[in-house]
């Protein structure tokens, strides 16, 4: 194939992605410096950095009071102090924190559980196919349904199964999603993505050298040593792939939050994605939302630089 032909064939995919990236991006950048409020359409002017300032620092209105109340209610004094001491809007601090916490916790949970379960299931037994099908099923459940199942049938303060079991032991019923909204969402996302980790680890485990295991066992290595020194290194690449792919998806978690907690109370369970959505569609403030969008893009880029640096080599050779 000639070089020209090769370039020609590559052109369409590169071109559409470039347009897909650049056009909306430049428009968002433009809006983020404009005053653009749906309820005040007659005001059309430049805003300078006002929108950014408001997104990052603003501390007025119901939201600010709400968040302080929520922190009070959680009784975490240092968080309240921090919120008051820093010049940032609590929503901004919480939202960035929530985003990183969500991605970090889900990665940790899925990798740990994924490793444990895939090593456990990696053996011959009758019904292995059924176990496998059951284990991977949550991955195919759409996030909206995932949220509905957990919000109603699991976390509901009265009829939810967790509380039914909880009260069976004589404990008081707990409104889980109100007290631990972010943890609730982390549970939902982790439930959906642990199967993904299991799948990839299981695939990778199948190519592991079993004879090496036997040899190690004969030499007196115990289970933990074999796992740490043989299995884990073998899975290194699979773990990198699991982390990279999940990061791509978790920075944009949306439906779970929309359906279960709507980001509340206050911004307690809102991620950056959800907060911007709220500002744009509930607050009608496009300029402000655009500024948030630019910040989200910057955050995503920071994360992706890190990723490409450390784990990107595992994906394309």
């Amino acid at each position, binding site marked *: *194939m000639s070089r020209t032909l090769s370039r020609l064939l590559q052109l369409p995919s590169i071109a559409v992605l470039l347009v897909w990236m650049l056009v909306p991006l430049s428009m968002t950048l433009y809006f983020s410096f404009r005053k653009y409020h749906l309820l005040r359409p007659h005001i059309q002017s430049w805003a300078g950095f006002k929108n950014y300032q408001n997104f990052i620092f603003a501390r007025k209105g119901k939201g600010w009071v709400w968040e302080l109340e929520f922190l009070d209610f959680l009784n975490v004094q240092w968080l309240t102090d921090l919120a008051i001491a820093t010049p940032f809007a609590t929503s901004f601090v919480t939202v960035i924190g929530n985003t990183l916490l969500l991605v970090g916790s889900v990665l940790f949970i899925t990798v740990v559980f994924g490793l444990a379960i895939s090593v456990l299931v990696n053996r011959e037994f009758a019904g292995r196919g059924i176990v496998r099908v*059951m284990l991977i099923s949550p991955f195919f459940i759409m996030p909206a349904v995932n949220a509905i199942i957990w919000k109603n049938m699991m976390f509901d303060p009265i009829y939810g199964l967790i509380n039914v079991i909880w009260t069976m032991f004589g404990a008081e019923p707990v409104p889980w999603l109100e007290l631990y909204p972010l943890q609730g969402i982390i549970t939902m996302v982790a439930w959906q993505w642990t199967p993904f980790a299991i799948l990839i680890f299981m695939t990778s485990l199948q190519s592991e050298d079993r004879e090496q295991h036997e040899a190690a066992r004969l030499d007196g290595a115990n289970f933990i040593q074999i796992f740490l020194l043989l299995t884990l290194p073998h899975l290194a690449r699979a773990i990198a792939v699991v982390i990279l792919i999940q990061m791509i998806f978790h920075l944009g978690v949306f*439906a779970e939050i929309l359906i279960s907690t709507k980001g509340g109370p206050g911004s307690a369970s809102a991620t950056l994605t959800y907060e911007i959505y709220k500002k744009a569609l509930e607050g009608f403030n496009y300029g402000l939302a655009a500024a948030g969008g630019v910040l989200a893009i910057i955050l995503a880029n920071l994360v992706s630089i890190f990723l490409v640096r450390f784990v990107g080599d595992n994906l394309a050779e």
Partner: protein
Amino acid sequence: MTYLARKKILEFIAVTFCWIVAFLVFFPIIWMFMTSFKTEGGAVSLPPSAVPLPGFAVEAIQGSNLPGWLGWLKTAVFEPTFGSYQTVFEREGYFKFLTNSLIVSVGSTLLAMTIAIPSAYAMAFAGGPGTKGILLWMLSTKMLPAVGVLMPIYLIAQTLKLLDTHLLLIIIYALMNLPIIMLILYNFFKEIPREILEAGRIDGATTWDELRRIVLPLAWGGLASTGLLSIVLAWNEAFWSVLLTTTKAAPLTTFIAGYTAPEGLFWAKVSAASTLAVAPIVVFGWLTQRQLVQGLTFGAVK
């Protein structure tokens, strides 16, 4: 105890654990499925009923004088009903949403594959030193948070009169999945030995022949895996569909998101709707799991 006997017992415990873990992971889905067959009252009864039995058996149990230690059975049994499904089918227009989901997920997959196959092919067999960089750049566009470009896309769609159309979702989903598709296809194409292509070239095959007669048949499994994954991702996508469609082109995700009213939630009906929304793709996933897994690993894990 001999070494072998101990090993057998350990193995038995491990297998038991496998089943317990699998059951726990799968349980929320079972519970949703079961709830969808209850009446609205039965769905929120306490303690929850969990044993579906035919009507006469339920009556017999509830009418009989059970000994004290079996008393719990009376509330644990319920008679399955299709009432909620009937409501979802008749009043909520399920099939329209199902059709939209099918059109959008298959359409976007076809569009993305059409763009991706020639490009990935060129990159895999005639790529320059920058190819890897281009691929990682593509993947990084996937990380741009959709919400960052929500308003521009909305405004563009509005200007072009594309809001609430299949075409809009097809284009967006195709672009959304294109980087992933490119990367997976590239990894699959890479595995085809170059010698085969060279042999073909010596026999006078043109580039088109090469792609059609050699590369595509050899990478067929990879193509299938990629396409399947793309369909699953498009089927479950809920950000763009919820925000850009209302009625005409609304897929099942929008349909489900409509069930989120905080008050007056009807569990049985919601469960029936949810079951119907996920059933096609879950069954599809079960049937194609071997292929799908290959795609999911991006061809990067052997």
